[in-house]
């Protein structure tokens, strides 16, 4: 009796069978991003001094099964401060049926990271040194965050009618990741029904002046001139600061 494979079978004895399974390169099925400020492949950064956590998840498929994948790393270019070179990714729970496994790593992006595209390349290496690794990439886009902070109210103090206050300053700090300009718009000051018009608050601030990203600041000078004939009293109002990406 001859078996279908042409191996003669002798009753009571067994035959040796051999086969070699080829190693197959892992495949990066998908790369996704998640986190508080993430929307799709975009991320909005928390202002200074915070960082923004982004979790990178790569789903890796290998025809030889998930245990054939020796390791998975991520590389980000241009470099995000603190994350140069290969970043090891942690293995998650495999899907045995689909022969896939998720790998994750979380990066904390500094608040002054420039806006723009950051290419994330994921590499999965096979246990066998003779099998090529699998790679995939996705772009994470860091959006602009325009953020400012300022100190407390400007107290011009007590001023004689017809006189001007000493020059006061409002410190405006850039907490975002883009350079900004600041528009300064004083409003009128009022005390009951009496008003000191907005034009009485002067500033020498130049609109085109840029405040650099990364917690840089500028002092905006303001001076109040009280017209003759202004009734006495404690006058209050606002000065509006409007930043814009430079």
């Amino acid at each position, binding site marked *: 009796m001859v078996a279908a494979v042409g191996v003669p079978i002798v009753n009571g004895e067994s035959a040796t069978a051999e086969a070699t399974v080829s190693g197959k390169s892992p495949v990066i099925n998908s790369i996704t991003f998640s986190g*508080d*400020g993430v*929307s799709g492949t*975009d991320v*909005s*950064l*928390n*202002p*200074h001094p*915070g960082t923004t956590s982004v979790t990178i998840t790569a789903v890796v498929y290998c025809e030889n099964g998930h245990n054939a994948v020796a390791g998975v790393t991520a590389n980000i270019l241009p470099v995000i401060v603190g994350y140069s070179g290969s970043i090891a990714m942690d293995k998650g729970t495999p899907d045995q049926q689909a022969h896939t496994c998720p790998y994750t790593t979380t990066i904390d992006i500094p608040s002054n990271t420039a806006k723009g595209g950051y290419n994330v390349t994921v590499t999965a290496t096979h246990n066998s040194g003779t099998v090529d690794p699998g790679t995939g990439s996705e772009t994470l886009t860091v*959006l*602009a*965050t*325009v*953020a*400012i*902070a*300022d*100190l*407390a*109210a*400007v*107290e*011009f*103090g*007590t*001023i004689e009618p017809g006189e001007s*206050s000493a020059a006061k300053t*409002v410190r405006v*700090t850039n*907490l*975002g990741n*883009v350079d900004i300009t600041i528009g300064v718009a*004083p*409003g009128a*000051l009022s005390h009951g029904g009496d008003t*000191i018009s907005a034009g009485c*608050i002067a500033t020498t601030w130049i609109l085109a002046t840029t405040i650099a990203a990364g917690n840089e600041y500028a002092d905006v000078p*303001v001076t*109040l001139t*009280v017209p003759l004939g202004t009734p006495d009293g*404690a*006058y*209050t*109002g*606002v*000065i*509006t*600061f*409007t*930043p*814009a*990406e430079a």
Partner: protein
Amino acid sequence: MRKEEIVILLIGLMMVLSCSTVQAVGVSPPSFTISDTVEGGEYESSIMVYNTADAEGDYKLSATGAGSEWITFYRAEYPETPVNKIHIKGHSKERVLLKIKVADDAPTMEYRPTIFVTTSPPEATGGGGAVAQPVLQMPVSATILVTGTRH
């Protein structure tokens, strides 16, 4: 430490504390574009509003310019309740959902409304002199392209 040194230290500490940041606000992104819209169509976008001050604060939401009347604001976690103001705890953030309903008779053109996120100034506590409170007004530039192209 001598008594005089302690007094000087306390005065210095009080001066530092009195200069603490009162208001801080951030938005991301500062601009966005919605392309290829049609008359009567409904679209969504979102911005993140940050309060990086220590204290909680109220932030007014408004829009100006052509197309601004199409925009309604919502807190992202309550997308059915329109708002014109949001309250954010100190050192926290809130995602604001923008729903844009293009007018049924909107001419085909580009619209550039500006959205503003504005801080509410704290109550003036001037010591009898003239006081000006800073108000921070963050603009978000929107571009809405009405092309009338239906896909």
